[in-house]
């Protein structure tokens, strides 16, 4: 069971790690790269707490082998803010109090960023469907959806 060397790009920076062949990308991020913002809520792709963006596509990092990351570009929650400056999606989540325990929040922020990168003007229903893979047990989703729609409007340059 030899470890494989993986070269990838994480949050814009070249990154390398050693991964056992069966290791999930989520485990590699958390344990090898010490990026603990991505969470394991289920390990089966049902909750979305481990959401990351790979080559522009939203995926669950628990459903991807670490070795599959070779040569790909990864964005995690740690790469969403610009230094100390929150991304508009993060700022709107804060303003609307769209998080409570915060455990699902990194996945939701990443999923929302992926949504707005691709669909800058979603309807509320589209937003709800896009985020249906992110379970949240605390908020009841309403404030999340308000924050997403508000962030979308701001990012399009519309005053909500």
């Amino acid at each position, binding site marked *: *069971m030899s470890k*494989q060397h993986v070269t990838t790009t994480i949050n814009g920076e070249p990154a390398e790690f050693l991964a*056992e*062949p*069966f290791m*999930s990308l989520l485990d590699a991020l958390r344990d090898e790269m010490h990026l603990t913002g991505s969470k394991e809520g289920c*390990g*089966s*792709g*049902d909750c*979305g707490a481990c*959401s990351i963006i*790979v080559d522009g*596509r*939203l*995926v*669950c990092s*628990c*459903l*991807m*082998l670490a*070795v*599959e990351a070779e040569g790909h570009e990864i964005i995690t929650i740690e790469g969403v803010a610009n230094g100390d400056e929150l991304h508009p999606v993060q700022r709107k989540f804060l303003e609307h109090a769209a998080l409570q325990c915060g455990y699902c929040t990194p996945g939701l922020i990443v*999923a929302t960023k*992926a*949504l707005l990168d691709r669909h800058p003007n979603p309807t509320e229903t589209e937003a709800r*469907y*896009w*985020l*249906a*893979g*992110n379970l949240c047990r605390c908020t009841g989703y309403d404030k999340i959806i308000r924050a997403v729609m508000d962030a979308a409007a701001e990012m399009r340059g519309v005053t909500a």
Partner: protein
Amino acid sequence: MSLSYASPTTVNEAVALLTGATGLTKILSGGTDLLVQLRSGRVKPDIIMDTKKIPGILGIIETEAGFVIGAATPGAVIGEHAGLAAAYPGIVEAANLIGSTQVQGRASLAGNLCNASPAADSVPAMITAGAIAIVVGPNGQRAVPVEQIVIGPGRTSLARGEFILEFKLPKPAARSSGAYLRFIPRTEMDIAVVGAAVNVTLDAAGVITHARVSLGAVAPTQLLVVDGANAIIGSKLDDAALAKLDAAARAVCNPIDDKRGTIDFRIKVAGVLARRAAAIAVQRALGQAAGTKH
């Protein structure tokens, strides 16, 4: 516990690897089923073969003859293909139902098919579209209608060393369209209790000249419901035809009884969904006809 990962870059390399391997080899496309099985310990392979570096296995090509969909193309890519969405809306809506946005970022048609779950969403839609799987293996290449791939829960007709490289869809006839509907205990992310796909072709008067009907999750494999198609061919999908379709759909069901749905419920809903999918398919085909007039 000697797992190894391989990512061949040609079909021949992949076939050689599959043929030469000892122990259990699992094929990795999107991995959305395989990684769950690995994590739970249900599957303990010796080799994982990642197909995604094989040329042609990712992406969609539109040709004169129709469409070629790479076997490992993720659902999200399928959902974004305008040409495919216009020609085969049923396949696109089925692919968009395979799990969440995150899962669609990875899950593929080949994975959905070869996992051989009776509830796989894309399979009824592919069957009604007349999709052909291009299977490669030690004896070269063969073309297999999708309905012949799955032979039982968890079992396929693929031989040792074989895997699916791509799917071919014919160019649809004029005034043709399709739809897929499924029923689950909630509206997103779960396993279908019933899935129903219908494809139709209409004549200039709006009469159905050709139809295919397929049901999922109501039998050990997805069913091609010939009686259901016959029930609506020759009609304009009037109430009598819909009632016959409903009855034909219910007649072929042989579902399991479990916590997701009892036999009675699954059978009843199969009829309801077949009717509704047929109505949507006809509406779409009529819309196309209207579109081609000017």
